[in-house]
């Protein structure tokens, strides 16, 4: 079968009645495609990512992931492990006590065996160069460390796609470079919402432009 990884059509969303953030946007993400999602503040970049994950529901249009129509919460439950969403604020993402718990949370939820989850968690920590941080409490990490751990906690689930919301916002240069190197090595599909031009040029190859609630695909 030759279905797109993700296809969506006519998605709309309004936080307040009469003030739509997104107006009937459509698009598709192919396997391995790397997309930069750009647009001014408040253009609806984060909203679009939340819609794609089924966390917000569009009153119009629809969504298909891996050729499967996703409407209800259960439909999304099944695909969520295969797509990782990095939140703008790492504190939203890191709710587990320690870095290690953070790494094990996703894989165990997906029903992996303990030993498989453990092995993958260790491997990922090494890949991210944070293997000596495993026992640290997440709320005591620096902003850069938090972002790395949040990204690692998605990576460990072996997702086929990553949706990143402002992955470099608030990071210093060295943390930014580390995030960039890791994201660049991700083999799957990628959507990055960001204002960081240099970062986007380094890791993505296509551009989606969100302007006034419409999606322009270049």
């Amino acid at each position, binding site marked *: 079968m030759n279905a797109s990884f993700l296809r969506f059509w006519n998605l709309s969303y309004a936080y307040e009645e009469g003030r739509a953030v997104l107006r009937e946007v459509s698009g598709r993400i192919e396997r391995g495609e790397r997309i930069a999602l750009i647009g001014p503040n408040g253009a609806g970049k984060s909203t679009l990512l939340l819609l794609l994950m089924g966390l917000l529901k569009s009153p119009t249009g629809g969504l298909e992931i891996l050729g499967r129509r996703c409407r209800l919460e259960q439909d999304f439950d099944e695909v*969520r*492990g295969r797509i990782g969403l990095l*939140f703008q604020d790492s504190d939203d993402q890191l709710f*587990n*006590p320690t870095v290690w*718990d953070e790494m094990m949370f996703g894989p165990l*939820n997906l029903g992996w065996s303990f030993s498989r989850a453990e092995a993958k968690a260790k491997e990922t920590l090494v890949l991210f160069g944070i293997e000596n941080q495993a026992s640290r409490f997440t709320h005591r990490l620096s902003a850069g460390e938090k972002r790395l751990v949040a990204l690692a906690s998605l990576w460990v*689930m072996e997702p086929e796609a990553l949706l990143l919301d402002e992955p470099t916002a608030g990071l210093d240069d060295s943390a930014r470079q580390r995030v960039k190197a890791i994201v660049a090595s991700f083999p799957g599909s990628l959507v990055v919402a960001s204002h960081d031009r240099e970062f986007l040029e380094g890791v993505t190859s296509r551009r989606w432009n969100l302007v006034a609630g419409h999606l322009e695909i270049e």
Partner: protein
Amino acid sequence: MSCLTWIPGRSWIHRVTPEARLFSALVLMVALTIAEGPWAAMGGGVLAVVLVGLARLPLRLLGHVLIRLNLVLGFMALLLLPALCGSSLVESPAVRPSGNGFSLLGRMVWKGNAMVMLYLALLATMDPMALGLAMRALRLPSRLALLYLLTVRYVDLLHHEWERIRRAMGVRGFRARADRRTFRLYGHALGRLFLRSLERAERIVWAMKCRGFKGHYPLSSRGRWTTDSILFAVGSCLAAVLIFALAWIR
């Protein structure tokens, strides 16, 4: 800076694993609560003092906590005094303390102090987060543990958010006074805090769902019971048995 504090250190107690310490604290506190009689109370008190010594708690801090505790207990004793004395206003205008009432009060104060010392020595010497993990490792009700862990995780963030709001008010010249405007502005600030917390709670649930959360919170590490911690737990059980045995002495 965190608004949750604990007592770090390098004592022998600090090295016992949190699970063993939580287990011991629970066993000893239950024993001390249930066991009756002055000897059991005495035994528990001595044990608490020994544990405080082993944990090398700073005496100043211990003093502060115990003074506060005893002020509360003293206040309670004042309220209960008529009942303790067994006197009624009609019978006699003078207060005639009954021996029984005072010995009960004495035991209450004694046990209260012993409990708090046990708590300080065994539980306050670990990071609040570690305490939550220990709750999970001991298979205490998982909802309770999860609730506690999330509270510890986010209470700081709430605190920071509140500080941010207050600072934002401060830099624009706001000074708290006892007037209507102050109350109204504090109302707005609290409302803002509440809204932000709600929004954050929603985003956290999203983040959990995104990582496959379906209502069951997985346990991410296997318990680590070292020889030391097993010895410590067994020792506490023996101590608890001893306290119960002391309760039999008349």
